[in-house]
């Protein structure tokens, strides 16, 4: 039997990108994602192992930390998500982290579980405010801030990556198309596109 070739496909079935000064959408379908859940009482060991391997301190509060080509997103008490680009070598963050955290944490691939979208533009906060019931004003939500919440009834993790501001939003992959529908409709008054 021939070896099937598996190719990564976008979870966003309709719109995958939108470029408008008011609102920009970029589908991040080239990511490798893994969840890290500390074993009971082992979060200090998990933090030490990640510090040694990647030179970053895992946060205890809703924050994102970045190392060399990798980001760790707070994902609840003693839990984080590791995110990196698959790149040309097809990097697999689950395979990479498992030996680092052996016996300390559960490491599970989320690459086929989560979809991530990047949004920016002059009206990005106005668009997101239609669904996210959290305060995204710079006085409350800054670069590297993280929030686990929901938008348009869809569970989301949102974090800010720069002061532009640019945000990245992760949701369960099966909700991606529905989320994109909400996003493009919310942006329509600024972009003129439905």
């Amino acid at each position, binding site marked *: 039997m021939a070896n099937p070739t598996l190719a990564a496909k976008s979870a966003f079935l309709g719109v995958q990108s939108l470029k408008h000064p008011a609102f920009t959408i970029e589908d991040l379908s080239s990511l490798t994602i893994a969840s890290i859940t500390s074993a*009971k*009482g*082992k*979060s*200090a060991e998990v*933090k030490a192992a990640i510090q040694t391997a990647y030179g970053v301190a895992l946060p*205890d*509060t*809703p924050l994102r930390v970045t190392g060399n080509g990798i980001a760790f997103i707070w994902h*609840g*008490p*003693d839990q984080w998500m590791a995110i990196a680009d698959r790149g040309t070598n097809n990097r697999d963050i689950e395979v990479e982290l498992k030996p680092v955290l052996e016996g300390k944490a559960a490491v599970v691939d989320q690459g086929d579980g989560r979809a991530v979208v990047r949004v920016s533009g002059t009206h990005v906060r106005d668009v997101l405010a239609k669904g996210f*019931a*959290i305060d995204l004003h710079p006085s409350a939500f800054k670069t590297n801030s993280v*929030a*686990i*919440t*929901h938008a348009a009834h869809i*569970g989301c993790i949102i974090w800010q990556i720069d002061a532009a501001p640019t945000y990245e939003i992760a949701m369960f992959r099966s909700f991606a198309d529905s989320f994109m529908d909400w996003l493009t409709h919310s942006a329509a008054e600024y972009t003129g596109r439905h």
Partner: protein
Amino acid sequence: MRITCPCCGERALDEFAYYGDASVKRPDIASPTAMADFVAYSFDRVNAAGPHRELWYHSAGCHLWLVVTRNVANHEILNVEPARDVARATQQLPTPGRGSA
């Protein structure tokens, strides 16, 4: 009504699920008085018009179980604690040697 989660900050009520009275402890089913104990556990409530300790779950957020002290007469939230801290303080959970929590 808004609840200030110790992890996530102030969030709207629709992110939380209510579980029930946090002041009762599930009885031992092997006890000879289990039937009476479970009837009391399930149905006997003081139902005072004032502060009440209740279990809430941050279901659309960090997934932490919380003990919320809420004035049932006016919905004022008086205190929010992680339920695991409360359980440890009342000896229902062992305290693991850990850096966080």
